[in-house]
């Protein structure tokens, strides 16, 4: 008994020390930076305008994005929950894909669609024989909103769709039998019952839109800076660390408020009964109105989800360059040059990003992240599953990193670890550690229900039959948990491979990652740079898609990642 208790303590201790050192220390460093600056200079180092402008814009774009996401997501959730149609399953899987795509891939994909070198402009130039791209959709608010809708519609589809599927159809029918017109039945019965889920999904979407970084940085341009982008700019371009710190503190506070609101909303007000139906809710579209809805909605979703992805992949295989000397003339054709260039090792200026090195680095970081995040996350989940007063106090401590953005983590690391031995070592360990912190909450959330799902009687039975504690774990727990562990490994690998926010702070010219390299390529002129950014994005897209398919395949039913 005594030994098992001390063992539990040890389980706690490893992830706790890791978090204190690598998460709370950097966080503290940001606060210290801000308040020591204030102590030395007063609030002289910034003007209110510098804060209010990005803050208001961040809230505004997040509000608009959430609204648009709901506008498409709610009917889409209804489509998947209520209708049976050909290709439903494929479309559903497709609709979940965007959520796991790295931000740089999404940004690049939209660049190939609506950017100056994207398909839309190319087609217009070809049709009207123009020499310059006629549309400038990049660096605009609509571009940001579009990417956010693309990203987060899947959250609404998944969360609201789940509730809709489990909402007992008899409620709506009972209302209609009791003289309610269809819209009255919806307003009086279905909507109030779904409201907690809709609010929960909206707040989550808002949170993601609020902390969005890569998409805004790459599609919004300099005049549309959110807090995240402003933190990055202040820290990395202006070297105004106190300002970056102050923005981070504000960002953290807003994030905390949203999370608190989420917890309030999540509490079920009327039992679980309302959302636990196992009735079959899907049927084929019956009348013309339903058929039109299904067809239009499918079309919209296919265009929304497929066009950026298709555009990215196709554009990475097509050359489209101004022919030398002749105005308005273009060389066009199929090419695999962008891909082969990735693997030819050329050295150039110090700004030259070596793609081969980036791929190698990213793979190494991802494998390390996979191991660190899964082992720490598993330990944490195991400790959390042993419910006690202690766990209740410590749980928020472990879940907080979910609310902190990657950019803030990057800034904290910069402030804390920008010194030997962290910078002088032979290997940049900081990047996989930052990635592990980002993946950790997801890993805990994947493993915790799996661990809690094992009935204690199984362990007791094994113990009665003479199994030593470690044997109980090996014989009972591990085989059951293997699925959750594989999901965690895949998930943390994929997160690390596509992570951009923290990497943009921590990866220097010596240690680029794939997303950082894509960002550098696409910010530079030249068809080859552009093409290589697309080629790398496509490779990253394929890896992420494979990862998410694997997760979908082995994920236990009932586990939710958010």
């Amino acid at each position, binding site marked *: 008994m005594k030994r098992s208790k001390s063992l539990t303590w040890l389980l706690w201790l490893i992830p706790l020390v890791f978090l204190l050192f690598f998460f709370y220390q950097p966080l503290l460093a940001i606060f210290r930076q801000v308040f020591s600056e204030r102590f030395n200079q007063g609030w002289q180092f910034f003007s209110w305008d510098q804060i209010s402008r990005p803050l208001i814009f961040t809230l505004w774009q997040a509000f608009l994005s959430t609204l648009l996401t709901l506008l498409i997501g709610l009917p889409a959730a209804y489509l998947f929950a209520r209708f049976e149609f050909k290709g439903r399953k494929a479309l559903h899987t497709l609709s979940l894909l965007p959520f796991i795509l790295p931000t740089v891939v999404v940004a690049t994909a939209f660049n190939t669609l609506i950017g100056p070198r994207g398909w839309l402009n190319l087609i217009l130039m070809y049709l009207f024989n123009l020499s310059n791209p006629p549309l400038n959709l990049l660096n605009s608010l609509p571009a940001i909103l579009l990417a956010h809708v693309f990203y987060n519609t899947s959250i609404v589809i998944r969360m609201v769709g789940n509730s809709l599927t489990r909402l007992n159809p008899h*409620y709506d*029918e*009972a*209302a*209609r*039998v009791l*003289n309610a*017109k269809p819209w009255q039945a919806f307003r009086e019965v279905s909507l109030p019952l779904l409201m907690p889920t809709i609010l929960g999904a909206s707040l989550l979407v808002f949170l993601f839109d609020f902390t969005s970084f890569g998409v805004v940085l790459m599609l919004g341009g300099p005049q549309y800076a959110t807090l995240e982008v402003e933190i990055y700019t202040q820290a990395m371009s202006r070297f105004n660390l106190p300002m970056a710190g102050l923005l981070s503190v504000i960002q953290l506070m807003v994030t905390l408020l949203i999370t608190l609101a989420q917890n309030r909303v999540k509490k079920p*007000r009327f039992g679980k009964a309302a959302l636990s139906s196992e009735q079959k809710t899907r049927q084929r579209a019956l009348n013309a109105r339903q058929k039109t809805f299904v067809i239009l909605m499918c079309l919209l979703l296919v265009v929304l989800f497929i066009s950026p992805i298709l555009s990215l992949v196709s554009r990475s295989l097509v050359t489209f360059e101004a022919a030398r000397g002749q105005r308005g003339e273009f060389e066009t054709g199929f090419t695999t040059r962008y891909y082969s260039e990735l693997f030819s090792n050329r050295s150039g200026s110090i700004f030259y990003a070596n793609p081969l090195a980036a791929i190698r680095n990213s793979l190494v970081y991802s494998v390390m992240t996979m191991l660190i995040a899964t082992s720490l996350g598993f330990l944490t989940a195991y400790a959390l599953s042993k419910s006690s007063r202690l766990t209740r106090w410590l749980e928020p401590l472990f879940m907080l990193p979910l609310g902190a953005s990657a950019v803030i983590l990057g800034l904290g690391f910069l402030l804390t670890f920008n010194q030997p031995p962290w910078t002088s070592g032979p290997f940049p360990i900081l990047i996989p550690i930052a990635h592990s912190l980002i993946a950790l909450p997801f890993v805990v959330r994947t493993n915790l229900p799996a661990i809690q799902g094992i009935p204690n009687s199984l362990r007791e039975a094994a113990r009665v039959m003479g199994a030593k504690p470690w044997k109980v774990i090996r014989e009972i727990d591990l085989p059951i948990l293997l699925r959750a562990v594989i999901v965690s490994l895949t998930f943390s690998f994929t997160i690390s491979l596509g992570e951009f926010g923290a990497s943009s702070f921590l990866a220097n010219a010596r240690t680029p990652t794939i997303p950082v390299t894509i960002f550098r390529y696409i910010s530079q002129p030249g068809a080859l740079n552009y093409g290589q950014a697309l080629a790398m994005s496509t490779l990253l897209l394929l890896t992420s898609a494979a990862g998410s398919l694997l997760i979908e395949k082995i994920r236990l039913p009932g586990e939710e990642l958010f």
Partner: protein
Amino acid sequence: MLRVEDIYKDYDGKPLLKGITFEVREGELVCLLGSSGSGKSTMLRIIAGLEEPKSGRVFWNGEDYTHKPTHERGFGLMFQDYALFPHRSVAENIAFGLRMAGRSKLEINSLVENALVSIRMQDFPKRPVTELSGGEQQRVALARALAPDPHLLMLDEPLGALDHNLRTELLKELRKRLHDSQKPVIYVTHDQEEAFSLADRLLLLHAGLLVQEGAPEAVFNQPTNAWVASFLGLGNLVPAKLVAINLLQTDLGQFKLRASPDLEIGSDCMLLLRPEGALFDVGAISSSDYLHAVVRDSVFMGDYFRLDVLVGKTLLHVHTPQSFTIGKTIPLAWSESNLQCLPL
């Protein structure tokens, strides 16, 4: 009043209802009886307008209601799971239909008050429905269905979700309330006891067809086929063959009885031996006509004993006023009036 005509309905590509026609008259309580999956609930949903039939029509007082929206029909339907709105209180649930019908606040308040009194829940109108017991939920659901004064009330297995003791208690109450309401009622159930004790008329649904229709005692006395007899648990069914006019051949031997004139000689049928019609007094019949039965089990049932007896290889159950020793061989016979030959 209500008339459904030649209703066809498919479910998952398979035919579920294959031409159902019946009527419900004023103030009549009709029980739609059938095993689960027989399409009883679907029939109710078609009448309520929640589903459309593949073909066929629904008439109310001569008016074609087949494509009329649910909320314009003015019918009441009580769901098997009650479907009480979990975000509304007891009183709000009862008031819902009145509110949707656009009644005035004053009217709603007094009607809800009356409804609450009738189900003895006037002291807690504000209680959340999620905190009610099964029986209370059932009462609220019925009160909610009756509140807007529907032209026709439909109940889908209203006692299905309750345990045995509560069922017996609520069945009595339900019977009184339904008869008091004087409304036409369609009551769907798979429980023949419920149906027999409530119905003015029974409709038996099997394999998508109405196999029998009639007053409870008529159905009980004259089941039209073997399925009805087996479903209602009317007695022992033994495979038989009609070998000559009014002569049946079975594993138990030959039986003389009046068979239906529709049945051709040489065709297979089922012999129904009612357990309460068994005779043990050998003196009453000639010795060649009785069966030799070995008593396998004897169970005290209150006002009779239930015997399991083996005749040859066939196990029969019969009711007797007195007990018999297990293992004993006894004579057993049926008078012709307690034997029936039923088509398959």
